[in-house]
Every structure is written in structure tokens, then in C-alpha cells.
């Protein structure tokens, strides 16, 4: 049953704080101290302190492993905590240092030495439990629906505890549907100026046996689940925040995938992906959630696991590494990880089919966990490319973190605020009808930033635009 606790995956000696990191010595070694990662790092760019650079953080980790630095020290704690986890340092590293994995281990070492602040612990326990999550989000949706969230974001002071509340409410308000204005816009040409001349039925899509979606690892199930004319049988991760606040995007994901030939099955027992826990240093919590997801999706007998949240995709694609030192589960987790796809990958793979014109201009931002962690910069743009009339303007500095990084804005109001304001300025400079980014966390961060500056704050996910395009074209009727 779900919730089986994985006995300390770090193995014997995991009591020593550095042992988890120690086990990863191999991952630290490739760092040759070349500094190529420095200019990619948003915290180093703004603070200029080597301790706030990827190389500096790796140096601190190495010092802990070498026993020269205490994992409970203020230095280790502060600088590991101040990392956004955006992983912009990974693709630029000539040595291929797996920074993201090391960061999670460092966070775990730091958290064991010094438990994180109460709000962080509370948030993690709420997200990690279905029963606690549900009322939490009901409350959130009520604040959002009654307009209280957006009112609070307008009137609360920006400093102190109330400032934190203000940011939280602004993020909540920013989770609201941002497609309204776009829906209302009149197309320049005819309503059905769709280039879709043929093949509106998804069933005509031939199954491609060479498709990368077909599981190829021997430990994966046979591809018998592919019925003729269908692509793969996919299970959607409903997620925690998505299910709580972005149900509409989950629905749009299912609709657009179905229309592109995928067999989308519900996986009601799927859980939070565990990314927040892993980033927060609670690797055991992350493993627990990962196991629940493995159980649920395996039972649903799906070929692929799909998500519309960049952060969840990145985390699930690394389940193999999460269970690295657990011989019993490592293979199973690795096989699971190989089936994980972002929705944009599946849509791009399918074409995707074009719909009706949706005349609008979008200020597009790359989510770090899609671009840097999954190497997916093009796929979401391909999704938007299937929508006639939609102009995409990739904002200046789109490959830099928006400062959202989970709850970074709340835990690091100054630096998070600075990074967030730079992003908002770039979004505003692009002058779109709405901001667009394929990750709920970034949507809320950017939306909140716009709102706090009193700017128009519509933010959309690419699948929402594709969905709107299909709806307009009458494909769902």
C-alpha cells in the first residue's frame, strides 16, 4: 500500500550528517572549479559572493564531505538555502556536474543539522498529505473566488509578516484563469480560419512503432496497450497545487492530449510528486510520495506518465536517482522515470494538430525545470506554434529563473523580490496580452509580481491556449 516508508536509503551511517553527501563524492568530483557556471547563476549575478555561486556551493558541499565544514554551520545553511534550485548551472557545466541532485542531498544534510523554519515544515506536511491538502486548497479557492485574495494583495503592506501574507495572496490570486481576455478577443479573420483541412479525427493518426514514446527498456511493459490508431496510454499526474488551484489546466491537458490521439486515463491515487520535499531537504518524504506514485501509476497500467508542471516532470524524471542507494527500488524507480513526459513533449510528438485562430500576443518565459532540468525549450513553443493567430514573444532573459522556486519569494523576500521584479520588467517589456509559461509555480510567481506592480496580470499555460483553439474550432462538440 502507499506510504511504505523507505528505510533510510542513504544506507548505514546515515546518521552522520555528511554521509548522504559522502555517498555522492563521485558526483562532486567532476567539478574542476572552472567557474563556467558563475554567469548562469541568478544569485551570483546579483550578490557577487562566491558562496552564492554554483561553484562556491559545491565547494561548501565538498568541505562538508571533507570534514572541514559543519553541516550545521550558518555558512552551509544560508548559502545552500539561498540557492533557487533553478539548475541554470547544469547545462553550462563542461564537466556535466549533476548539481540538482547534489543540492537535494545538501539540503537534506542541512535540514537534519538544523530543521527548517516552521512555515516550510508546515507547507511540506500539508502538500505531502491528501487529507490536509484538500481543505487547504478549498480555503484557497474560496479566497480566490471571493476576490479576497486579490483585495489583500492590493491593500496589505509590503513589509514584514503582512508583506509575506500579501505575496501569498497575490500568488493565490494569480492562479486564477488568465484566458478571459484572450477568449473575448475577436479574431482578425473568420472565426474558423483554421488551416485544419483534414484529419480532424484523432483516430486517423497512425501509431508509429518507432515512436520514442514506446517504452523500450526491457523492464518496461510491452507496448500492447497501443491500440490501433492510438498513441500511448497515458496517466495524468494531477499533482498537489495543480489539482488544488489549476484543475482547469489538468482538464485542458487531458482534452488536448486526447484530441491528439493519446488515451488519457485518470489515476486518482496519484499523489504530489515530492519535488517540494526533495528541494526542502526532506528526501525521505519525497521517496514516500514517489513510491505512492509508482504504485498508483503501475496499477493504472499506463505506458507513460504525463504532467503539465515543469517542476513535477523534472522531479519524476529523477526518481531513479532519488532511490540511487536503494537496491530494491532503484530499477523500478528508474523504469518509472523513463516513462515520465511533460505534456508539451507528447503534444510536440503528435504534431500537434492545429486548431482555430486565437488572436493574441503572449510574453513567453521558459520554466527552469523545463529548460535546464529537462532540456525542453522547444516543445512548449511547438504547442503554441499549432495555434494560428497567436504570436509568441520570448521575453528577454527567459532562461533565467523567475524567482518563484517553490516558496523562495516567501523565504527570501529581498533576493526573491529582486529576481522577481527583473522578470516582471522583462514580461512587461514584451507587451503581450498575457504572460505564458508552462509551470504553475512560475505562473503564480509572475502573476503575483505583475499584480503587485499594479499591472495587468493574466498568465496562461500553453495547453490552455491550444485548448481554447480546439474549443473554438468545435473539436470538442
Amino acid at each position: 500500500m502507499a506510504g511504505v516508508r523507505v528505510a533510510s536509503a542513504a544506507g548505514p551511517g546515515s546518521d552522520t550528517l555528511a554521509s548522504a553527501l559522502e555517498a555522492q563524492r563521485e558526483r562532486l568530483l567532476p567539478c574542476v572549479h572552472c567557474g563556467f557556471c558563475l554567469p548562469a547563476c541568478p544569485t551570483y549575478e546579483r550578490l557577487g559572493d562566491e558562496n552564492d555561486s554554483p561553484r562556491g556551493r559545491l565547494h561548501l558541499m565538498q568541505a562538508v564531505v571533507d570534514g572541514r565544514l559543519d553541516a550545521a554551520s550558518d555558512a552551509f545553511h544560508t548559502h545552500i538555502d539561498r540557492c533557487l534550485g533553478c539548475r541554470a548551472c547544469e547545462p553550462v557545466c563542461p564537466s556535466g556536474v549533476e548539481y540538482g541532485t547534489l543540492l537535494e542531498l545538501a539540503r537534506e544534510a542541512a535540514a537534519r543539522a538544523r530543521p527548517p523554519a516552521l512555515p516550510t515544515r508546515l507547507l511540506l506536511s500539508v502538500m505531502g498529505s491528501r487529507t490536509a491538502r484538500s481543505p487547504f486548497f478549498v480555503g484557497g479557492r474560496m479566497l480566490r473566488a471571493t476576490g479576497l485574495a486579490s483585495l489583500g494583495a492590493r491593500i496589505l503592506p509590503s513589509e514584514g509578516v503582512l508583506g509575506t501574507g500579501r505575496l501569498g495572496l497575490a500568488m493565490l490570486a494569480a492562479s486564477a484563469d488568465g484566458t478571459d481576455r484572450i477568449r473575448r478577443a475577436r479574431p482578425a479573420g473568420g472565426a474558423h480560419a483554421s488551416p485544419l483541412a483534414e484529419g480532424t479525427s484523432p483516430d486517423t493518426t497512425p501509431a508509429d512503432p518507432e515512436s520514442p514514446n514506446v517504452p523500450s527498456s526491457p523492464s518496461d511493459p510491452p507496448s500492447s496497450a497501443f491500440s490501433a490508431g492510438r498513441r500511448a496510454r497515458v496517466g495524468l499526474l494531477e499533482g498537489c497545487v495543480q489539482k488544488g488551484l489549476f484543475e482547469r489546466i489538468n482538464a485542458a491537458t487531458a482534452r488536448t492530449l486526447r484530441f491528439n490521439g493519446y488515451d488519457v486515463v485518470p489515476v486518482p491515487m496519484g499523489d504530489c510528486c515530492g519535488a517540494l520535499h526533495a528541494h526542502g531537504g526532506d528526501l525521505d518524504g519525497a521517496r514516500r510520495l514517489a513510491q505512492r506514485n509508482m504504485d498508483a501509476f503501475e496499477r493504472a497500467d499506463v505506458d507513460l506518465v504525463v504532467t503539465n508542471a515543469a517542476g513535477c516532470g523534472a522531479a519524476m524524471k529523477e526518481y531513479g536517482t532519488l532511490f540511487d542507494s536503494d537496491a530494491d527500488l532503484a530499477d523500478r524507480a528508474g523504469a518509472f522515470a523513463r516513462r515520465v513526459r511533460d505534456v508539451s513533449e507528447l503534444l510536440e510528438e503528435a504534431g500537434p494538430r492545429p486548431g482555430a485562430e486565437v488572436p493574441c500576443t503572449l510574453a513567453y518565459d521558459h520554466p527552469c525545470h523545463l529548460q535546464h532540468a529537462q532540456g525542453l525549450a522547444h516543445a512548449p513553443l511547438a504547442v503554441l506554434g499549432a495555434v494560428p493567430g497567436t504570436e509568441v514573444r520570448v521575453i528577454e532573459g527567459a532562461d533565467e529563473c523567475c524567482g518563484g522556486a517553490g516558496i523562495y519569494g516567501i523565504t527570501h523576500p529581498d533576493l526573491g523580490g529582486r529576481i522577481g521584479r527583473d522578470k516582471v520588467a522583462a514580461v512587461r517589456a514584451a507587451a503581450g496580452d498575457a504572460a505564458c509559461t508552462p509551470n504553475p509555480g512560475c505562473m503564480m510567481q509572475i502573476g503575483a509580481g505583475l499584480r503587485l506592480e499594479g499591472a495587468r496580470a493574466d498568465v496562461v499555460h500553453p495547453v490552455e491556449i491550444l485548448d481554447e483553439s480546439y474549443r473554438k474550432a468545435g473539436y470538442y462538440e
Partner: protein
Amino acid sequence: MSVPLSSKTVRDLRSIVGAAHVITDPDRLLAYESDGLTQYRAAPSAAVLPASSDEVARVVERLHGEGIAIVPRGAGTGLSGGALPSEGAVVLGTARMNRILEVDPDDRLAVVQPGVTNARLTEATRPFDLYYAPDPSSQSTCTLGGNVAENSGGPHCLKYGVTSRYVTGLTVVLAGGRVARLGGSGRVASGGLDLTGLFVGSEGCFGIATAIEVRLLPLPASVRTLLAIFDTMEAAGHAVTGIIGSGLMPAAVEIIDRATIEAVEASVFAAGYPKGVGAALVVEFDGTEAGLDADADRAERCCLEVGAREVRRARSEEERLGLWKGRKKAFGAMGRIAPDLLVQDATVPRTRLPHVLASITEIGKQYELRIANVFHAGDGNLHPNILFDRADPDELERVERASHEIMKLCVDAGGTITGEHGVGIDKRAYMGLVHNETELDMLRRVRGVFDADHLFNPGKVVPDAVETPAEPVGSERASAAHAEAGAP
């Protein structure tokens, strides 16, 4: 050894640059203990991160007033230990001085703060169809301040020349916090002696450059890139001699050897070289479109004549990057296959390359070390990379000895001990190999003009007294490194 500063000094520094930008916590100073050469480490007494020329002057005045030495630091990518903290010194980092102050497309000049990265300067000038020519392989991250201090070069410096050719003016903060303006407004010398030229390459020992004026070049209209594959290094060497001897003027001529190719192919960066290849040569021509194809054809013939197995030519920018991949990824690939890497740097006359390379292979065999070579073949600048594991003290010892022999070999072949990475701490003991006592004395006295009391980067570049390079070198360095490796 780091010596804590007095609380009064710390307070004063904080009031100059802001509390967040003065680092004194010993745990936080660990990050400043090494540059790109991690064989050495020593924590500073503090690290200070000023944001302006004026702040630098005040920090220098304050610290030098107490006789505290200062070690300038840019991005810390240096490979000779130039930014390694000297004993008791304070590191002055330029990371916050990262503004481009001016781009003047008409006069083709730019003025930058020292912490601006080399690549960012080129990015900022590209809209004007201009660029900054010196292109160290570390250009995405190394700073102009570091480039000035090291007189850095890069693959394309074969045709375009190194940093000193491009720096036309400097604002420098000298010992005690005095400020001087050298050159400026496009003139290389400000009348009289070329002080700007003297400062370029001073490795942080003369003072701190706080504003740098450089010349920009128009972007070349076109480029042609070839990759030639050879069975032997010797054949590749002959090809280089042939190309240069035929009067061609390539922008870059780079070679990677068999060991490097094997490292690249074994790593995640596999560039798709055929198996069992002895050497790969990258040749690039740039300039106006007319004549480029003819040049590339001639270079290709030079390669084929001496037995190149195949010659590939890039037809798009993407393909061009593909051909460069093996060269550009070499450093990282080696990091993947060995725990530690010592990147050496030396220059020999181009014609002696085959002899020197063969001897380096011999040295590797003799000391049972893996040595891989990548180099700027066009100007004879070698980078032997010694792969090792510092956890093995015996191996470390052999690395030190092999290193020394390689240096001696290059000097004996008529070359010198550094091509572009500088002397720093690492090559200081080799200075006696290339300079006699009269020359060393001149170097000391020139340094004294700028910094009589050695308050900037003390102990670097020029050995204080006569050091016989033969024995002490290996053992001194080895034991210093041993102490570090064994340090808890």
C-alpha cells in the same frame, strides 16, 4: 593561514562597501581559497566586494594603511594561482563591478568595469557589428580585469593578437589607494612610456584595474572552418607547418591529441571522432567572403598532402560548432575521467612541436601518468593536461616531477614557461629557467615602481630571491600540495 582582521578594520570596510559585501566568517572564506588551480588553497583574512572605483580606492587605502596585503580576484578562473590568497591577505573581488560603462561604435571603443565578463562585452557590442577579439576558452565567465592582469589569449589570437593589443586605457588603483589614469581615448600610450602596456600582464601585482578601455573590431563577415583527422600527431604537425608555411593566415589552428580524443569520446561529450585517430586539427579562416573558399581549399590540400584521413568542412554555424566541439569540451571531458587535472601551459617554437610532443609522451610513460594535449598549434602554445588523483600522494609527487620536466623540456626547446595562463604562484619557481638574475632584478624593480612594499598579490610572479629551479621546485610544491591534500 588566515589572520582575522581587527573589528575596527572590519567596521570601516563595512561602512565603505556595505555590510553584506565584507566576508569574514572563516566558513565563508573557504570559497575564496582557490582559483581555477585547485592544487593550492589558502583562505584569506577577509573578502571584500566593492562596487565602484571609488570604493576600491577607499578599501585599498584603509587596508594598506595597516600594511594588510590585497589579492585581486575576478572570476577565479585563473590557472596559475594568481588569485590564490597570499598569507594574511584580503581578497578584493570585482564580481559586483560588472557594468559596461560605454560602447562607442564610431570610435570602436568600449569602457567597462573590471568584473564584466569577456563574452558579455562581445554580446553588448554585437548589435553594432563589433566584437572584442581576444577569446580565451573561458570567455563566458572570465573577467576583463582578469584578462588584463593575465594578458590573456585564445584560439583566435593567432591572427588577432592577445589582450595587450586591445587595451587602450586603464583606470588603476595603486598602493595606498592612489588613483591613476593610464592611456585612454583609443591612444595606446598617454605620451612618454607606455604605462598601459606595462600594466597589462602584471598579474595583480601592480594594482587594481577599475575601468578598462578596449578597442573593438568589426565582426568578420564570413568564416570557414575545417576539421582534419590524422593517424599520427606527426602528420598533424606537418599539416600545421604546411598551412602556415604556404603563407595562409588562419584565424585559429588548434590540435587535440589521441589521449584527449579518447577522453572526449569516453565522456558524455563524445564528438564522433573515428576510432584510433592520432590527432585532430581545427583550422578556421575568417574575414571578407572573397577568397575564403580558396584559403580553405588550400588548407585542405595541405592536410591531404601529408596524409589526413579525412577533412570535414562546416556548412552552417551549427556544423561549425560541431567541429569545434571536441576542442571546446576537452577540458570538461578530462574532468569527467580523472578526479584531478593539472592544466599546464607553455610555448615552444612551432617547428619544435613534434619533438616536444614526443618527449612529453615519454615523460608520461616514465612517470606512469596520463597526459593529454590540446593546444593552440598555430602559435606553439601547448596545454599538456596531467590527469591524476590527489588522494594518491605518490601520484601527486610524480605529477610534480613530470610537470617540472615538461617545463624544462619546453625551455630547452627554445620556448617559455607560459603561453597565456601567467606565472602566478605556480610558475614562480620556474622563472629562473627563463630569466637570469639581471632580468629578475629588473622585474622586481619595475614592480617596485608600482608597489614598493608588495602590498598587492605578494609572493606572486617574481621570486623574491634567487631560487634554483631544479630540486626545490618539485619537492616544495609537492609538499605544499601534500599538506593541503592531507589537511583535515
